[in-house]
């Protein structure tokens, strides 16, 4: 209780205190001015606003208000002229003063833009920057002269000797006369002064010039000195790192110097032209690009697979209004289609796209004349590179000790050094070879790529990545060199050969360009003669080739023959160089229709490959063809990249033709002249795509081969295995299921298993139970036999099945089987797919096979069995659909409420307002009346005064007159 009371008390005190404060704030009211309205009915708890009023104050307010409104109006009544305030923003109370200024300024500027001075662009206004006019800023005053002049000025002011002052201003006559015993006249003194000042001026000028000269000299000397200092610095760094502790003190001393040196060094800036993206960055970008491409590839691999499940997308309406501004809608730019042109200059795009887009019918631009510069650039590049590497190498030879702490700024150097380091680590004999390899390959490739890239300047950005790619690949090659030891010596020799050729080629090329035109005119028959006089030396061969190349596309009809002529009778590597120069000489940048020519060349090369793979009789032929193919494959890639659309068309046509041939004799496996193209396709196109214009049909073709052909001899089985290997290669990334390949492996296992009629194991067509069974079955003990672990080229031409072949077949198919098996590790159906294989493999008598192979195969079997054993089957279930939310009811809210109550209210309000308005009008009237009466009174007073004055004057006058009368 006490507490509550307490609280109450305290509240009271506060209130009182507050009230006092309030009272202080308020103006003190005169109690006589307050009028208390009497309440007729007292309602408890009702707060009345109008219980008291200040009649005097409110009346004064009202009168004041009327004065301002009605009064002014009355003043202007019946007057023709009015005063209107049109200042901008004056009436708008919301604008601040500054805003008002801005608005006025803007209006001012607007006014200046009249028709007259529309072309008078900012002539008269002076632009400023931080208060200074631009002219002032752009004066480019020599700063040094500035302060010196200032100095001079100061001196001039302060340096005036007393003599000077004396001379000019007399210096007081008295003192002068006192000191004028020496007898110098005033005039002399002045002259002396003038001479003195002149001399001083001249001195100063001289001094200034000398200083300027010196500065310039210093500058130039510094520039000479700069590189020396620069390299020296680095060397010092190295030495420090090497000797480290010993020199640390000396280092500290020279620290300030170094700091200053570095600051100075920052002055040197490379010009933008020789900006080099350093290797690390390059590598990083390259890596990013590859990753990006890889991501895209994976996206394509998933393909519609995912989309189908999601739900068929609703077809978007194609209709688009002409006035559609596309502001609200996302445009359905599915994917950019590739714009390419055929030889007539018509765009090669699907018609539906043509309909949607208006494709300007222009020819692709080729930048002629760029080739020359490109040549130079290449050479420059080469020089640079070789210089760099030379430098690096010499550096290394000199200072082997200080390798680790390379300056990170100079990444290019580092990388080359690193390369050479790696080479160093190898044996000396190896060293030479590898050096040759990389050196010659890099420039060649670069050259080629650069020239290629010049062609499509439109996508010039492709240039960098390509080159980078080349570089990284080369590096990879270097790294892997140790692993390529398997390569036979023969291969290496051929490599060397090609390199030599390449070098010669390079020399040749500089002249080739000029000769090209002449050669084209040369008679074709001469060439044939030349060709017949076959000369052995490569040099002449190359020359000859050049000539042939020149005339290759003269006649459209026998291009193919000529290409064949060009390539036949050479080693694969020679063919490669010939082709390289051919492609280079018909670079799309050189002539308008070269792109078209190159795409035709692609077709002829396809034909050539097809030709060399037909009717191969013995192993050496096969090997030679394969080697040739190996050498030519990269060019297919290049050509396909120059003209994607037409090369794809050629390949598809080829596939169609081969498919037609295959369909004619379905039971026979197509020969290598068909199969090799599957390999080519896998080299050129991504095989993992869900759908691809080339690879999908190729894969279907291959699976059809495995479905419908009969496999009962060495010819068919070897080719079947080859196709299966290719299918494996096609699906290695996408891990797709190709049942024919798996069935084929099952068939092979069946053929090599020891099957009996009594308890057969099912096989899938084209293999049939009890037919051709056991043709691959090993019936003699070969455990001592030494067998290669790969299928070989000779298998393609093998006539009869021998034990060696049987063993290798089984080994290879079990290897492939394992890879296929691994595809489906995450899928339950793996068991159904591979159980029959396991059963068949159990029937194979592995003891007869060589030990190593026995081990491998049983390893595979073991692996598959163990994987299948732990396989679990979880029932398929689908994601449960989300439960639907209950519908909730929300109150309906109406914005306008109209009821009877409000109308009553309105009526009373109206009444009140009406009353108020009438009262106001009445008061207005009384105000006007009062004003009028006041005016009237005032004018009456004035008149009365005037009358009084007149009377007064007249009385005075009368008085004076009377006075004068009296005087008389």
């Amino acid at each position, binding site marked *: 209780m006490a507490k509550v009371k307490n609280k109450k008390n305290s509240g009271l005190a506060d209130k009182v205190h507050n009230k006092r404060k309030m009272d202080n704030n308020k103006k003190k009211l005169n109690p006589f001015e307050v009028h208390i309205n009497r309440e007729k009915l007292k309602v408890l708890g009702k707060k009345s606003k109008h219980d008291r009023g200040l009649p005097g104050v409110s009346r004064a307010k009202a009168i004041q208000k009327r004065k301002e409104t009605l009064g002014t109006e009355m003043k202007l009544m019946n007057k023709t002229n009015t005063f209107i305030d049109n200042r901008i923003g004056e009436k708008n109370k919301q604008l601040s003063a500054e805003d008002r200024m801005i608005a006025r300024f803007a209006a001012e500027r607007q006014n200046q833009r009249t028709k007259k001075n529309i072309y008078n662009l900012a002539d008269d206004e002076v632009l400023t920057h931080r208060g200074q006019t631009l002219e002032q800023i752009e004066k480019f005053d020599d700063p040094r002269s500035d302060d010196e002049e200032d100095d001079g000025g100061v001196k001039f002011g302060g340096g005036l000797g007393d003599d000077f002052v004396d001379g000019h201003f007399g210096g007081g006559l008295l003192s002068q006369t006192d000191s004028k015993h020496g007898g110098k006249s005033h005039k002399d003194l002045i002259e002396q002064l003038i001479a003195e000042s002149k001399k001083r001026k001249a001195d100063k000028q001289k001094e200034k010039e000398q200083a300027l000269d010196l500065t310039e000299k210093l500058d130039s000397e510094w520039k000479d000195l700069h590189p020396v200092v620069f390299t020296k610095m680095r060397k010092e760094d190295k030495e420090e790192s090497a000797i480290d502790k010993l020199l640390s003190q000396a280092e500290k001393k020279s620290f300030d110097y170094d700091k200053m040196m570095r600051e100075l060094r920052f002055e040197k800036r490379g010009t933008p032209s020789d900006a080099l993206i350093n290797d690390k960055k390059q590598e990083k970008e390259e890596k990013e690009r590859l990753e990006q491409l890889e991501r895209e590839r994976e996206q394509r691999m998933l393909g519609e697979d995912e989309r189908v499940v999601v739900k068929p997308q609703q077809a978007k309406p194609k209709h688009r209004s002409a006035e559609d501004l596309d502001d609200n809608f996302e445009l359905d730019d599915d994917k950019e289609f590739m714009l390419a042109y055929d030889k007539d200059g018509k765009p090669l795009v699907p018609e539906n796209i043509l309909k949607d887009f208006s494709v300007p019918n222009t020819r692709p631009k080729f930048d002629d004349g760029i080739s020359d510069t490109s040549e130079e650039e290449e050479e420059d590049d080469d020089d640079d590179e070789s210089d760099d590497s030379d430098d690096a190498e010499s550096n290394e030879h000199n200072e082997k000790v200080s390798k680790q702490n390379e300056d990170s700024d100079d990444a290019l150097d580092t990388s080359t050094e690193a390369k050479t380091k790696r080479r160093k680590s190898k044996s000396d004999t190896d060293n030479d070879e590898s050096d040759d390899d990389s050196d010659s390959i890099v420039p060649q490739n670069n050259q080629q790529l650069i020239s290629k890239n010049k062609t499509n300047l439109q996508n010039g950005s492709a240039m960098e990545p390509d080159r980078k790619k080349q570089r990284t690949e080369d590096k990879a090659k270097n790294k892997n060199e140790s692993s390529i030891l398997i390569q036979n010596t023969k291969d290496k020799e051929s490599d060397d050969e090609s390199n030599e050729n390449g070098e010669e080629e390079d020399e040749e090329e500089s002249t080739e360009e000029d000769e090209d035109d002449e050669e084209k005119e040369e008679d074709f028959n001469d060439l044939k003669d030349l060709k017949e006089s076959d000369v052995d030396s490569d040099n002449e061969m190359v020359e000859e080739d050049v000539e042939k190349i020149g005339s290759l596309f003269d006649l459209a009809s026998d291009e193919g023959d000529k290409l064949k002529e060009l390539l036949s009778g050479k080693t694969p590597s020679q063919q490669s160089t010939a082709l390289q120069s051919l492609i280079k000489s018909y670079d799309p940048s050189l002539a308008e229709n070269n792109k078209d020519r190159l795409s035709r060349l692609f077709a002829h090369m396809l034909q050539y490959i097809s030709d060399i793979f037909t009717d191969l009789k013995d192993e050496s032929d096969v090997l030679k063809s394969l080697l040739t193919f190996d050498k030519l494959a990269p060019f297919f890639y290049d050509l396909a990249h120059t003209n994607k659309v037409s090369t794809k068309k050629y390949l598809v046509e080829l596939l169609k033709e081969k498919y037609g041939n295959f369909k004619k004799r379905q039971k026979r496996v197509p020969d290598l002249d068909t199969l090799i193209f599957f390999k080519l396709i896998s080299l050129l196109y991504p095989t993992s795509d869900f759908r691809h214009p080339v690879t999908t049909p190729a894969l279907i073709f291959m699976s059809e081969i495995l*479905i419908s052909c009969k496999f009962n001899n060495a010819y068919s089985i070897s080719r079947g295995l080859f196709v299966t290997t290719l299918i494996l290669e096609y699906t290695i990334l996408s891990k797709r299921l190709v049942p024919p390949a798996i069935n084929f492996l099952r068939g092979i296992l069946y053929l090599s298993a020891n099957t009996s009629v009594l308890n057969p194991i099912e096989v*899938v067509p084209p293999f049939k139970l009890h037919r051709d069974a056991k043709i691959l079955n090993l019936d003699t003990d070969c455990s001592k036999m030494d067998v290669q672990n790969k299928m070989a080229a000779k298998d393609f031409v093998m006539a009869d099945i021998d034990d060696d072949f049987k063993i290798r077949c089984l080994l290879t198919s079990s290897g492939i089987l394992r890879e296929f098996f691994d595809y489906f590790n995450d899928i339950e159906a793996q068991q159904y797919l591979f159980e029959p294989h396991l059963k068949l493999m159990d029937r194979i008598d592995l003891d007869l096979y060589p030990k190593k192979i026995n081990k491998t195969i049983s390893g595979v079997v073991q692996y598959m069995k163990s994987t299948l054993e732990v396989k679990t089957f*979880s029932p398929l279930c689908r994601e449960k659909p989300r439960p639907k939310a209950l519908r909730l009811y929300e109150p309906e809210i109406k914005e306008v409420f109209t009821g009877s109550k409000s109308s009553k209210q309105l009526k009373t309000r109206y009444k009140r307002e009406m009353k108020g308005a009438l009262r106001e009008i009445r008061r207005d009237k009384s105000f006007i009346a009062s004003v009028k009466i006041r005016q009237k009174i005032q004018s009456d007073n004035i008149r009365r005064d005037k009358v009084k004055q007149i009377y007064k004057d007249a009385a005075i006058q009368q008085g004076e007159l009377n006075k004068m009368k009296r005087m008389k």
Partner: protein
Amino acid sequence: MAAVQQNLSKMISAQLRNKANEFLNSRKHANNLADILQMFEAETDNYTPLLLTVEVIFTELLRRGDLVEEIIPLKPAERSPEAEYKRWLRECYEAAHTRAIECIKRGRTNSRLQALVTACKLMQAEGKHPLEQSTGYYFPSVKLKNIFTTLLDSETSMSAPLARFQEFTEYRDVQQYGLKVLSTIAYRKSPTSIYMQNYLELLDKLLICEITMDNKGKLKERDFEQKEEKLLCSTEDKAPFPYNPGVCRRYANRCWGFACQWPLCDEPRSHRRALALLVERLMPLLTKPHLATDMLCDSLDAGGPISMLALQGVLELVRTHNIDYPDMYDRLYAMFEPEMFATRYKKRLMHLADIFLSSTHLPEALVAAFAKRLSRLALVASAEDAVGLLQLVANLLLRHPALKRMICYEDSPNIMSTDPYVMEETCASASRALGSSLWEVCALRRHNVPALSAAAARLLDTGAARAAPKPLAPQDLASSFDAELKRRFKTIEMNFVRPQGMTSSGDRVMQYWELMA
């Protein structure tokens, strides 16, 4: 050599044409006919020009009516040279016809076919311009009989001529008279297999036009038919052809009756042909089709393609004749083996299975077993077959909602160590397929053929919304290879790594093949 021969034959045909023209223009060259007929004696393998000439001559003669002998009753034959000539011409005509029929057996296929066509053309000409006046519809049945006797040869297979003969059996009159003639000459005690083949094939060809079954609305159909049907030997001024389906059926039954007595089922080829004939053409015509039940049941047990054919007959019997067949579905179940892909009747089998399994009174376990087995087969099938199989499975799932648990298991999924489904079980209902899931379809989603992969995805999606089962898509003749080639692509993706030779990233060829020795 070939060129010389060609020249020779050209010369001969030119000569023949000249001779024929001369003969037809004036009677002076009557001997030309004799010469021409004489030439049939010569041994060659190509009678085509000769046959053509004969055809031209006699159709012209028949058209002109030169062969018609006016026979006045009760009057001895005339002895005038005119009559003699006519008689000689008729003899020649008969001789030419027999010669032509003989040629069906001899020589090259082309010439054989030509011989058949000539014989039929002559028959047609005779039918149009009969040699003797007759009141009714005239059809030269004797000529037809001759042709048939040759076609039903016991030693040589007549498949090629018979195939050609199909163009004539499409005529209604040929069909009706043909069946009649065949029923008269068919009887034979112990025919050779080739004879049986020929016989069955001929019968098959004769029944190629459907014979209407119902007697209702006969009149209407009459009218309809008269507009529609083709008649070989009709002309405007002849009596209308009295086509009678009932008669046709009777004759067809009689023909089949003869065939039934032969050991049709001994040799698989004739067995297959007989079954195909029975199932495709004869079943609706037979008066007592249940008599074929034994044959069909035996065939159903034979296995392979024969049982697939028999299945259709059994289906017909079960559906329309209330035959109760034991283990029907188990037999059907057993037919779905990997070997079925090698047979020609796989599409028929799938179609039949779709019909069989559309019954509403099937236990779910059985249907589930079928679904499981079909999808198991789809794993090893070629893409085209697999699409059909998947469609079949999809239909099963749509018709039997309880099978939904095979693609989306409602209860809390418990992980099993093995698949509860037993593939080896011969009894479909006992294979415990309902507890299993269609994991095979999941695997097929990874198939390399995009269309198939999409089909599998769709199948897995059928659980969401129930749609009407689709009929098995008629297998488009264009293979998926062509379909893929026709597809348009917006971009052509390329590899982004330049190959340094045959090897590339992810290379497997080099891993398993030593190609660059």
